[in-house]
C-alpha cells in the first residue's frame, strides 16, 4: 500500500485530480446541508447575475439557484457514475472471464454478443433504452451499464486468454484445482490492475453519458442534474450565460479529475507502461 502511494504520488497531476475529486465528493455529501431544501424550488429573483441577490453563481429563468443545482447535481452524477460502472464491471468481468477461460464455443457465443453491443452506436442505444423504459435514475443506470460492459468484457477476456496458458495456471491444473477456484483465486487477482484502471476511466465516461442524456431531456425529472441545468439554460443563452456555463465547468473538472486519477492508477499499477517514459 505504501509502495502504491509512492508510485501514485510521483504523478503530480494525478494527486491534483484526487484532490479535486475529493472536493467534488465533499460538496456532494454536504449539498443538503449548505443548500437545504429542494433545488427545484424557484424564487422571486429570476436571472440574477452571479453574486446578485445572494446567488453565488446566479439564478435561472424562474429564479432557481444555480449553485444549489450544481451541489445537488454532483450527488446525482457521482452516484450514477459509480453504480453504473460497478454493474458494468461486474457483468464485463463475468462475461470476459468465462469467454477467455473456456474458449471455444463459449468464447464464440459470448464474444459475438459483445461484438453486437460494441457495433451499436452506444449513445443512441442508451437514448433508446431510456426512452423505452421511461426516464428515471434506474433507467439511466441500466442504459449506461448496458452500453459500458462490452469494453470490460473484451479487456478481461484478453487478460484471461493470456493468463490461462501461463505456467502457474497449468501448475494449478496439475494439482487438480477446480476451474472456479483457478478463475477466482489465481487468474482474477492478476488482472485486477487493468480492471481498476478501466473502471475508474469508465466512471468519467458514465458521467458524460448521464449529462448527455439529461441534456436531451432523458434524465430523471425529479432529480437535479448538471445536464438538466444546461439544457434548461439553453433558451436563455443570449441573456444569461451563467446558467449553462457553471454546470458545464462542474462536469468538466469532475471528469478531468477522474481521468487524471485513472491515469495515475494506470502508472502506479502498470509497471510496464511506467518504464517507458
Amino acid at each position, binding site marked *: 500500500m505504501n509502495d502504491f502511494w509512492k508510485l501514485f504520488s510521483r504523478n503530480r497531476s494525478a494527486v491534483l485530480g484526487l484532490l479535486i475529486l475529493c472536493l467534488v465528493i465533499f460538496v456532494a455529501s454536504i449539498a443538503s446541508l449548505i443548500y437545504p431544501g429542494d433545488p427545484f424550488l424557484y424564487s422571486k429573483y429570476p436571472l440574477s447575475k452571479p453574486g446578485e441577490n445572494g446567488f453565488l453563481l446566479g439564478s435561472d429563468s424562474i429564479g432557481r439557484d444555480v449553485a444549489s443545482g450544481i451541489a445537488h447535481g454532483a450527488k446525482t452524477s457521482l452516484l450514477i457514475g459509480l453504480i453504473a460502472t460497478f454493474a458494468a464491471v461486474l457483468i464485463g468481468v463475468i462475461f470476459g472471464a468465462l469467454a477467455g477461460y473456456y474458449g471455444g464455443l463459449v468464447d464464440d457465443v459470448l464474444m*459475438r454478443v459483445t*461484438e*453486437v453491443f*460494441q*457495433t*451499436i*452506436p*452506444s*449513445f*443512441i*442505444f*442508451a*437514448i*433508446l*433504452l431510456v*426512452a*423505452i*423504459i*421511461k426516464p428515471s435514475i434506474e433507467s439511466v443506470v441500466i442504459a449506461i451499464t448496458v452500453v459500458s460492459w462490452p469494453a470490460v468484457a473484451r479487456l478481461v477476456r484478453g487478460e484471461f486468454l493470456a493468463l490461462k496458458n501461463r505456467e502457474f495456471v497449468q501448475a494449478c491444473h496439475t494439482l487438480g484445482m477446480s476451474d472456479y477456484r483457478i478463475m477466482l483465486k489465481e487468474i482474477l487477482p492478476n488482472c485486477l490492475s487493468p480492471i481498476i484502471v478501466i473502471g475508474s476511466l469508465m466512471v*468519467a465516461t458514465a458521467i*458524460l453519458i448521464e*449529462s*448527455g442524456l439529461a*441534456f*436531451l*431531456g*432523458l434524465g430523471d425529472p425529479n432529480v437535479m442534474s448538471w*445536464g438538466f441545468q*444546461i*439544457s434548461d439554460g*439553453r433558451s436563455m*443563452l*443570449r441573456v444569461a*450565460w451563467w446558467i*449553462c*456555463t457553471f454546470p*458545464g465547468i462542474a*462536469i*468538466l*473538472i469532475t*471528469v*478531468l479529475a477522474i*481521468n*487524471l486519477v485513472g491515469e495515475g492508477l494506470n502508472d502506479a499499477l502498470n509497471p510496464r507502461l511506467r518504464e*517507458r*517514459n
Partner: protein
Amino acid sequence: MQGIPIILAIVVMNFFLLNLAEGDAVDVLAGEAGSATPEYMEKMRAKFGLDQPLPVQLAVYLKNVVQLDLGYSFRHEMPVHELIFDRFWATLLLMTSTIILAVGFGILLGLFAAVNLNTWKDALISVFALITYATPLFWVGLMMIIVFSIKNDWFPTSGMENSAAFYEGFDRVKDIAHHLVLPTITLSLFYLALYTRMMRASMLEQYGQDYVVTARAKGLSERRITFVHVLRNALLPVVTMAGVQVGALIGGSVIVESVFAWPGLGMLAFESLFARDLNLLLGIFLLSSVLVVAVNLVVDVIYCFLDPRIEVN
C-alpha cells in the same frame, strides 16, 4: 461478410425493444385520434398483424426490413425510410468533415507531441487533449455559440443553410460550409483529443521496439526512423480505433445536431424522442448500426493495405 450476422442480431434486438415499449402502434394511433372503440382497435391490430404470435411478427418484421420498409411514422405521416434517407446526407456531411478533422489533426498532433516528447510543446498538446477529452459535447457547442455567434457574429447559430436567401451553385456550397464550421469543430474536439492521445502513446510504444534499434544501427537519421519506420507501425492501432469510434461519433452527432439544429439524423432522433415516435427512433438506430458496420469494413480494407501481416480475403 461477418457484418451480416451482426446486423441481423441488431434487427432482432430492435424488434424486441419495440415490443418492450409500453403500448403498440395502435395505442399511439388511438391516442392520436382521441377516442377509439376497443373493436376498432382490434380491427386495426389485425390489419397491422399485431394479433399474430411473436415469432410470426418477427418474421414479418425481418421481411420488411430486408425490403427497406422500416415502418410508418405516424407523427410525420411518412414511411420511416423516406424520412431517414431525406436527413441522411446532412449527417453524412457532418460526419465526414468531423472524421477528417479529428483523425487528421489527431494524428498530426500526436506525432508532433511524440517527436517533441517532454518539451513544452508536448505538455501543451497533452493538456489540451486532457481538457477536451473531459468536456461534454453539448456544453462545448453552447460555449461556441456564446463566443462565436452571440458575442461575435462570425458564424450562424443554427441550421444547415440560409434557406431564405435561395443561394444557388457555389454560393450555396459556401453558405453550407459556413454553417458547417461550428458543428464540425464541436463534434471533432472530443475525438481529436482521443486520437491525439492514442497517436502519441502509439508512437512512444513503437519507439521502444527492437526494429528501431536496428534502424539506428543502420545509421538512418531520426527523421527517417520517425516518418518511415515508426509512423506506419504507430498508425495501425489508431486506424483500428477510428473504426471503433464511428459508433460513438454517430451518438455524438445526436447531441451536436440538436444543439445547432443541424437537420440530420441526430436532429430527427431528438425530435422523435419528444414525439415518442418509436418507429422512427428504431429506424435511425438500425441505420446508424449499419453505417458502423459499413465503416468498419472500409477500415478493415485500409488496415490490410497498412499491415502486410493481414491477408486480404
